[in-house]
């Protein structure tokens, strides 16, 4: 009964923590609509129908970390591309927040 009102976006592949993703977001500026890409690492994945969300972390200029949370069922998400999978041993990668430089990189895991 609670599964009412849930429509998955077909342009979102299966995601897992540690994935490097490019999130294409629709942004409305006044009357104009454009698409912005947010590129980073999935550090948190939350399931749950309409409430499903991911938190993506990227390191912007000067080593400043930027995190953005996206609602996966939102019509504002155009599509998500996965560019890389990484070897991770936990579901929430909050430990990346305390790290900078090379320490904040994750080892790639190839899927065959």
């Amino acid at each position, binding site marked *: *009964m*609670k599964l*009412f*009102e849930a429509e998955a976006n077909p342009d979102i592949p299966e995601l897992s923590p540690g994935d490097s993703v490019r999130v294409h977001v*629709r942004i*409305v500026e006044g009357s104009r609509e454009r698409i912005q890409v947010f590129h980073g690492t999935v550090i948190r994945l939350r399931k749950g*129908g*309409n*409430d499903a969300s991911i938190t993506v972390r990227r390191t912007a200029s000067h080593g400043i970390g930027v995190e953005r949370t996206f*609602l996966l*069922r*939102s*019509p*504002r998400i155009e599509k998500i591309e996965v560019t890389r999978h990484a070897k991770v041993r936990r579901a929430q990668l909050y430990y990346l927040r305390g790290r900078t430089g090379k320490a904040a990189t994750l080892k790639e895991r190839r899927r065959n």
Partner: protein
Amino acid sequence: MIKGIIGKKVGMTQVFEADGRVVPVTVIQAGPCWVTQVKTPELDGYVAVQLGFEEVAGEIADERARQRKVERRLSKPERGHLGLLDGDQRKSLEQSVPALRHLREFRFESETAIDGIQEGQQITVDVFDTGDRVDVVGVSKGKGFQGGIKRHNFRRQPKTHGQSDRERAPGGISAGSTPGRVKKGTRMSGRMGNDRVTIQNLEVVVVDADRNLLAVKGSIPGAKGGLVIIQPSKKQRQRV
């Protein structure tokens, strides 16, 4: 067509508007309801429509088992009222109305409002449209015996400055020798919750006629599975 329906709270979720805005909603299993009685000034002294909700033992296929369940769930006067007793003058209702668990009345100002409403008629969620403003009546969750802070939004006393064990005490409840008593109705600790509560002016966000579901913006009183009454917003009605 009258507007008003009985339902059950399913739970809360959030839905997306076309532009991507997120709206918090409460999902209600609303209806189908049946008109079980029409009250008129001549007979009853006031105008109202009585609706019934939720079929008793509708899922039981076996006729005799269903019969037994209905007899256990509904008293004899209730069964008579729904036309389930042989030889009763309301017997004809049985054709159009199943055995119903809940009955609630909706009052109207004048008879013109209930023109054309007949006993046995079915009322479904599609009496509401998205964008309608509704009032939702339910019974709030029982909180048990609560102190003044939770129950009446009293303020807490200081935690420091020599204070000990009076942080959540109510403080003074009256003046002294004059009047020499505590006024009736003074707010104190006691049983909280389990009250009839109306939330006014909620927006209808989704109407799903196929599944008899309704989603209203915001929260409504009561636990999941609690009975709620949905009717057009009183304040909107006055404005029209």
